């Protein structure tokens, strides 16, 4: 009798948490425990929020043990205007070819003023250029990536364009015969 009640309770829990039916999520949870902050499913796509300290471990696990061989992209997101307690997060999208399955990792950055995350270029070599792009456009640093550089913005560019507080209204044209407005780069001769 008690077993039946327990059985039906367990089933109800699984019904209420569809993300727990997913093998990868369960394995990830048993590996990381508290490192997983949240699991969400939107429009059929799984998104796992992971603490920065667990990122490399999760990446290695997902790549080596769960078969997510390719990192499709990683993107920095400035959550300034979203109702979340952190400012920057980086989204990683992983692809498992065998099962044609995708999973997204969201890693909020601990520090709002100097966002920094460990690099995953040791796990997926192609991450290096994507991390450079996130650094260039959002200002998120990636520890362990020696090739971090500003790859999209021009040389000498200051500021991080994709941040929400970056002003994209009209900028006065800079001429070499007059002083540039404060904070803008000087024109070359």
């Amino acid at each position, binding site marked *: 009798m008690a077993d039946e009640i327990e059985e039906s309770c367990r089933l109800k829990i699984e019904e209420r948490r569809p993300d727990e039916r997913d093998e990868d999520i369960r394995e990830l949870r048993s590996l990381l425990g508290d490192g997983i902050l949240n699991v969400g499913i939107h429009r059929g796509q799984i998104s796992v929020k992971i603490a920065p300290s667990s990122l490399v471990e999760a990446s290695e696990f997902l790549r080596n043990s769960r078969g997510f061989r*390719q990192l499709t992209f990683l*993107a920095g997101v400035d959550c300034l205007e979203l109702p979340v307690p952190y400012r920057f997060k980086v989204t990683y*999208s992983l692809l498992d*070819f065998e099962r*044609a399955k995708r999973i997204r990792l969201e890693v909020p950055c601990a520090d709002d003023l100097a966002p920094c995350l460990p690099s995953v270029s040791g796990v*997926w070599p192609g991450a290096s250029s*994507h991390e450079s792009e996130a650094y260039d456009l959002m200002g998120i640093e990636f520890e362990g990536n020696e090739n971090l550089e500003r790859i*999209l913005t021009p040389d000498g560019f200051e500021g991080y364009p*994709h941040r929400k507080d970056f002003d994209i209204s009209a900028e006065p044209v800079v001429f070499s015969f007059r002083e540039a407005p404060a904070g803008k780069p000087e024109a070359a001769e």
Partner: protein
Amino acid sequence: MSSETDQVAALDQDTLGPIQTETMTLNMGPQHPSTHGVLRVVLELEGETVISCRPIIGYLHTGIEKNMEVKTYNKALPMTDRMDYLAPMSNNLGYVLAVEKLLGIEVPRRCRYLRVLLAEITRIQSHLVWLGTHALDLGAMTVFLYAFRERETIIKIFEKISGVRMMTSYFRVGGVAREPYPEFMNDCRAFLEVFPSKVDDYEELLTDNPIFCHRTRGVGAMTADQAIGLGVTGPLLRACGFDYDIRKKEPYLAYEEFDFEVPLGDAGDIYDRYRVRMAEMRESRKIAMQALEGMPEGPLMADDPKVVPPPKEQLAYDMEALIHHFKIFTEGYHVPAGEVYQAIESPRGELGYYIVSDGSPLPYKVKVRAPSFSNLFSLPEMVHGGLLGDVVAVLGSVDIVLGEIDR
């Protein structure tokens, strides 16, 4: 090739004695006819051998993704055309599918078939540009003219259907921009019927051509493992023998209803990439024919008046239509909050749109996962140890478009 380098090395030590040698740094681009766009490649050479290669991008960065954040979803759509400007309908498709996913709306079957037809014709058109420019880099100028002659036919169809030769913005959220013109199906059929013989012509010029083979066989090879680690997708990955095509594995639109093969290479060199793309043109033609023959009847646009603007005539007598039209074109439609990543198989690989919505009519964040971005950064792997002349051949075979790399 490697024996020549050994001979040079041997010469250095035995004959030249204590003469100092150093590597030469050569800059290729950003203005260069063979970099296929404003790409700068810094090469370190030991004689003619490439020791290292560093691609430098950013010369075409126009901040499209940032710009999309201040426009409504419909207004942001034409900006997507300009990224991969050689396959504009592909870009539109990826964006439109992502927004439709966020909105949770489905387009009718006829629209899906039409989108498949146009997406495959776009693939053919994009591969023709690749073929023409790649062959031109290697000296085969005739192929360039033939390929662009075929492409003209396609571009004329695009112009008749959307008003624009290249940046069509024909695919819209909830459907397409307008009904195809009356002779559209006949025009497509006429082109698709003569196309296979044209592909035969190109293959006759290149496939068994000794000069072409000598420049492409065994050159610029990459293993599937290297490619996967670097994020390479598309024909570049399939030429390494790895079978993954999003149209087959994660079907979108109506691809599961069509019968087509996914061509694979095995050596991962330039020649295999050429064979894969030529075969892909034939497969695309097959899919397009099936979409054409099997085009169902029915509505073209999704049934959601808040997203799909009403027909113009209705505005004259229907107040609700007028209000919907006004709201769609001024304020825009509210997209439910959430994030979505939609990937499609563009002619260059996996093109994906990662859109974050905060519930407002403007996208909060758009990240475009451009296939050429990852494909380009596999260049150092491919040219290392090769000759300088091979760099041009390899770059052509990667089929990059700087517009989507830099955005």
